[in-house]
């Protein structure tokens, strides 16, 4: 094609044009979707981040005031960032470690594999709101079965979702309960490790830990990396469980307008995505909500680019 258009026979050019039309036709649903539900709202978000707009009166230019407000005066910004960071570090690490442990356990089982696999997988299917409601009940300090059992064993009974220092660990436990997706991914990876490598390691007298360290882990490390990065991306978006747990524990639940203490208790379950909702739909401060949205966007894209670089296999194509 680089030879110059005169050298290309007319028939070939026609074919090329037909192929382009065909490609565009197949891509068209997504091209419209990309423009309309991604590019347009993103540009519009940038525009509104410089405007003062309450959703009713006409927007007016506001300079950097929204940015200054969100970073320096909005009382929940840094707390939300700190909480999200806490969840990204602790929740992701524990989920990956636990998921890998459960995956390993499944591959070691000889009896009842089907039963155990289903049992371990089931909680992953529980809808997030339902699962959070279930945990809010299980962990409620007054009548919840967990504290009941802890009391019977003479152990301390934490306040869980009502105690600022226990609410994030409680959310982490909820996240570890729904480990099914990671278990399946790790199981598939573990079964792919060549048996000969284990046999060779056994002949060399390797113990269980050495076999894991020098045979299993090198084989599955790309999958571990994948689980960590996707886990970070998911946790950046952590919203439903945090907000439902806060609402149920605080006892304030209801329709759209009803206010409840953000991130109850004491802002400990307050995460980045909740800011967009709080600013835009509760405080009607569209401009500042767009600033929060752009912060979330910037962080998500930074993590995504990490994923794209680490796993170039994502972009591999056959032909």
């Amino acid at each position: 094609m680089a030879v110059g258009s005169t050298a290309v026979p007319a028939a070939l050019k026609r074919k090329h044009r037909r192929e382009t039309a065909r490609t565009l036709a197949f891509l068209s649903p997504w091209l419209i979707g990309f423009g309309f539900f991604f590019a347009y709202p993103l540009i519009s978000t940038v525009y509104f981040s410089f405007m003062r707009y309450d959703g009713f009166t006409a927007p007016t230019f506001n300079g950097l005031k929204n940015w200054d407000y969100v970073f320096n005066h909005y009382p929940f910004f840094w707390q939300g960032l700190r909480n999200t960071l806490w969840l990204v570090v602790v929740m992701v690490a524990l989920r990956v470690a636990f998921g890998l442990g459960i995956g390993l356990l499944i591959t070691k089982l000889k009896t009842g594999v089907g039963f155990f696999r289903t049992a371990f997988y089931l909680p992953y299917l529980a809808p997030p709101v339902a699962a959070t409601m279930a945990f809010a009940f299980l962990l409620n300090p007054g009548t919840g079965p967990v504290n009941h059992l802890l009391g019977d064993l003479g152990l301390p009974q934490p306040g869980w979702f009502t105690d600022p220092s226990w609410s994030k660990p409680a959310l982490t436990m909820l996240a570890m309960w729904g480990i099914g997706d990671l278990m399946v991914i790790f199981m598939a990876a573990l079964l792919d490790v060549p048996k000969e490598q284990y046999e060779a390691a056994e002949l060399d007298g390797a113990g269980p830990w050495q076999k894991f360290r020098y045979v299993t882990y090198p084989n599955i490390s790309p999958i571990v990396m994948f689980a960590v990065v996707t886990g970070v991306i998911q946790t950046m978006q952590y919203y439903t469980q945090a907000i439902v747990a806060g609402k149920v524990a605080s006892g304030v639940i209801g329709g759209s307008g009803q206010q409840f203490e953000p991130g109850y208790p004491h802002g400990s379950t307050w995460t980045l995505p909740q800011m967009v909702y709080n600013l835009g739909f509760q405080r009607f401060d569209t401009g500042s909500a767009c600033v929060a949205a752009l912060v979330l966007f910037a962080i998500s894209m930074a993590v995504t680019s990490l994923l794209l670089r680490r796993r170039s296999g994502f972009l591999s194509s056959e032909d």
Partner: protein
Amino acid sequence: MTVTTMTRPTTASPSTTTAAAGAARRRAVLHWVAVHSVAVAAALFFLLPFVFVFLTSVMSDRQALTGDLWPHQWQWGNYLKVWQTPGFLGWWRNTLLYAGLGTLLTIVSSLPVAYALAKFRFRGRNLALMAVISMMMLPPQVTVIPMYLFWAKQLHLTGSLWPLIIPMAFGDAFSIFLLRQFLLTIPKEYVEAARIDGCGELRTLLRVILPMARPAVAAVALFQFFYCWNDYFGPQIYASENEGAWTLSYGLESFKGAHHTDWNLTMAATLLVMAPVIVLFFFAQKAFIEGVTLTGVKG
């Protein structure tokens, strides 16, 4: 056992061999017991929450206020009470509409895009793929403000689920990505053979590729159905102002509000929201597990 004796064809007398075999057998039994004990403990962690939720859901109102674990009398009527809660049936209808129609539109709009990304050669293909992945990773909160303004001020469709359903007719990034990953594994000879037979691209996709891609399509459909079923943020933004448009996931939360401390009714409602997803899983277990594997392993 035979392996251990075979790898050590030493001059050991028969008696020591049986002793070694006995030790190995004991070790194997101990190993079995240890591994399965851990598995039972893990199964308790994963299953007991369901058990406690169920036991509380059939307790009397009075007993649900206590810390009791076992119901004195089994009040199956609680489920009837939940079912008769005003609005509950409407939430079911709305959820089924959102999940059913949303899934259908997603598949129809995403399959051709995935096919083009997997099997066509064109300039900007990698760029398009990167755009798909970026959209996939985008938190829904990032674009929600302009989208809400659009649906509310231009089309006056807020207070319904249409702002959530209509965009699914324009491709879903995650579904496109997953379908593409699967379509890559289909050898291009099939496509070429169909072309030689004079099939148009659309015919090739529907007649040749789709039958082979059925497991992936099933997995993507399940994922999308679950996504809609579980969605909380979407209905919170667009439907919260109109109780008649609520979905189960959104309504469930308000259920606790209306029944303040009635954990028994709340837990019955919680189980009713979980049940369809779990039943669906048992019918489509294989497709689902394959789909989860596809997200992580292929590529």
